[in-house]
């Protein structure tokens, strides 16, 4: 079946089975490999993207449920050559180890800051705890989010894909 999506501002039409998870559409139909497969059950957060500005586990979101939606992936955060402040913080705080979960971590953090520009430590933990990291980078993730809290202005979920 044909579905249309706007991903990182670009319109796409894909012809896939209606129950295909958004994750595999993003990765294998559109070739955007930054979004990762971790558990296939919405348990680890590695596949987190934004759907109409809300964080979603793309591994457990069927394409038919997001037909016509605006999607932002990790690649869309840094479009235009400027890294998102969180991405810069991830680099300067040296967050990634194996790095596999970090796209999902950053997407969750970006949504948090877009809605709560000055989150408390508890707010950060509450928002981020569903994103698992097996290397144990959590403390640096918290530090990176705190380092940009209050300074994220240019990125608003309502403008995604615009």
């Amino acid at each position: 079946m044909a579905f249309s999506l706007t991903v990182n501002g670009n319109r796409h039409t894909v012809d896939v089975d209606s129950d295909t998870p958004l994750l595999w559409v993003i990765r294998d139909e559109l070739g955007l490999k930054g979004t990762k497969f971790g558990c296939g059950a919405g348990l680890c957060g590695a596949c987190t993207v934004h759907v109409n500005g809300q964080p979603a586990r793309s591994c457990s979101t069927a394409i038919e449920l997001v037909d016509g939606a605006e999607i932002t992936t990790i690649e869309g955060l840094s479009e235009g050559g400027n890294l998102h402040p969180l991405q810069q913080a991830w680099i300067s705080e040296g967050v990634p180890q194996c790095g596999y979960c970090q796209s999902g971590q950053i997407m969750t953090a970006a949504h948090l800051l877009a809605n709560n520009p000055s989150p408390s430590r508890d707010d950060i933990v509450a928002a981020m705890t569903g994103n698992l990291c097996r290397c144990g980078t959590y403390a640096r993730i918290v530090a990176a989010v705190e380092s940009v809290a209050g300074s994220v202005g240019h990125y608003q979920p309502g403008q995604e894909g615009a």
Partner: protein
Amino acid sequence: MAMNRRDFLKVSTSASGGLVLSLSLPGCATVDTGYSENAGTWRPDAWLEIQDNGNIYFTLARVEMGQGTYTGLTTLIAEELDVEPASIKPRFAPVAKEYLNPAYKLQITGGSTSVATSWEPLRRAGAEARYMLMMAAAKVWQVETDNCSTQDGRVVHPNGIDSLPYARLASLAASEIPRIEVPLKPRSEWKYIGKQMKRLDAEAKATGTAVYGIDIEQPGMLYAVVTRPPRYGAKVKSFNKADVTVHSGVKDVFEIERGVAVVATSYWRARKAQRALQVEWDNDDAITLSTESVFHHYYKDSEQDAGVSEREDGDYAQAEEQAGKVLHADYEQPYLAHFAMEPMNATAWYKGDAMEVWASTQAPDLGRIAAARGCDLSPGDITIHTTFLGGGFGRRLTNDYIEEAAAVSYRMKAPVKLVWSREEDTQHSPCRPAMLHRMRAAVSGNRLEGWHHQIVGPQILDWYITNAAPAQYPWAPKMLYNTLGRVGLAAEGLATPKDVSAIEGAIDYPYQVPNVELRHTHSDPGFPITWWRSVGYSHNGFAVETFMDEIAHELGEDPIAFRRARLQNQPRHLQVLDRVAEMSRWNSASASGRAKGVAVFQSFGTFVAQVVEASIEGSEIKVHKVWCAVDCGQVVNPSVVSDQIKGGILFGLSAALWGEITLADGKVQQSNFHDYPVMAMHNLPDVELDIVDSNEAPTGVGEPGVPPVIPALGNALFRLTGVRQRRLPLKASS
């Protein structure tokens, strides 16, 4: 390890002009790897290549799975070459003899060996290259080489004003051979080693552009999934092929050695079609184990077979006869899964007379053997391309997923990406072995006179050698692979290194006790096992450091004072133990409802002492704080060391709190993160780390954070509750 330059460095000119340094490590020179030259313009053994366009390439012989080799090894060569580490472009090594890990004679990344084994040769290569560039410049300027200097990628004229960039000198330098042993920089002149350096892979990983095995695409690529037997050892009897092939997108359904493969035009179509697949299994050789039967088996074997004596100081039996009291404890530790975030996967492309494989693997040369098993080619016909690894933790030393991808591509004659689901990874991956430890201590008055440790469980090499032995003899015909494995096991400890996976951390019991006996009763239930972050140290650490705590308690001594008194000949243990006592204010009481526990343990040459403070809140164990002192010799990158030790602590805590793969009727009962929990952010304790200053050679940091935290937490819970838990994972109420 001192090396003669002529033993290991070769100099040549690259295809594009420029300086190429290649190396051969001692003892590996006779190994024919059959590398086929199709990797582009660079030579596979080009360890360091300085091109005349200014690019500096460095071949990373140890894979990057999060542990920081990409940054750490690059820093070593950059330091002596005198360039910014970030100006070097690392590339992942193909399989070639030059990249064997000298600790294992295999091209594997594991055992926390990367920095320790690269420390000397990489700095030496950097220093030699720098000196050759200086010689070239000296020739251009007609000056003495030793009067030249370097600064950030340029050779500086003795006049201090003129300079030439390395790029301009690269091809000229290729004809220069230093006639002296080029000295390495003294520690006081290091610009990058030991400094807080940013990770060189951070940007790629923060922007989603780092390429992992699962991200590989090839033209016309198909996708495969495999249904494997629920009980290990079962074989395919029959399956309903026709019911599966009718699904849209399905290209083929067929049996391979390890199960039934479903091949389709997309991953999702392969998965959906797989749901319709029904396999009838021949269970004649299948395991029927349960967790209870595994331990029943261990106890029975431990009584019938005292095991191989691995260490004997004094006479334990006599000490026990003369003892005022004998203490006993049995510790049971479960099978553990790895749960690397990137599920197992590989992409293979069979091209008739050759095969290319792209995979996240810790052991590319064993991957070649695995691929050869899956097709009609020899290892020399197979090229393995490694990528970034989405976690390894030992799981990716076993290349079963490469064997499967190769077998499917061989059948399809097309590029195939094969992906395991998380459930498949949980249920069909080899585990850290379940182990039983039976401890006895002979005590007289307040003296510990004897220590007896009987380890009961399998050896990992038994499961690993089937691919490891052929990888050491890649020219051997495939029909000999299984024989090589048996020969390898027979020659263990003679021709090949002894498998210490069951006893490491117990054989080096550090405490001064007059009578020590260590025995290993080899008992293998038949469930697949492999390496797991810190391997044998992970279970021996719990047994040794918990039993030490039990004895201290029995003697009415403080756990640290008791250990200190018996570590007087172990200055590096003592140093970290004293440091952690100070950091944690050991002698000050914890807040009400909390208690502290301690452990000190050496693994992979690194000394780690930890104090854990915990409480029980409702039905959950809460870990509040971990203090950790570590001595890993000289530090290449303090932030990587910190990340690795702290990451190891969280990895160990996940195992201590929740880690357990259980079996029922031969089947693994867990399937995904909901029933195999790992540390999440809301469980995160505060971790305070101190890396003690050292002039010793660097030792591993990827694994040593793991072992002590498990007994330290158990010891804290004992102080909190008065109940000793001798079975992992730990419970809030026992």
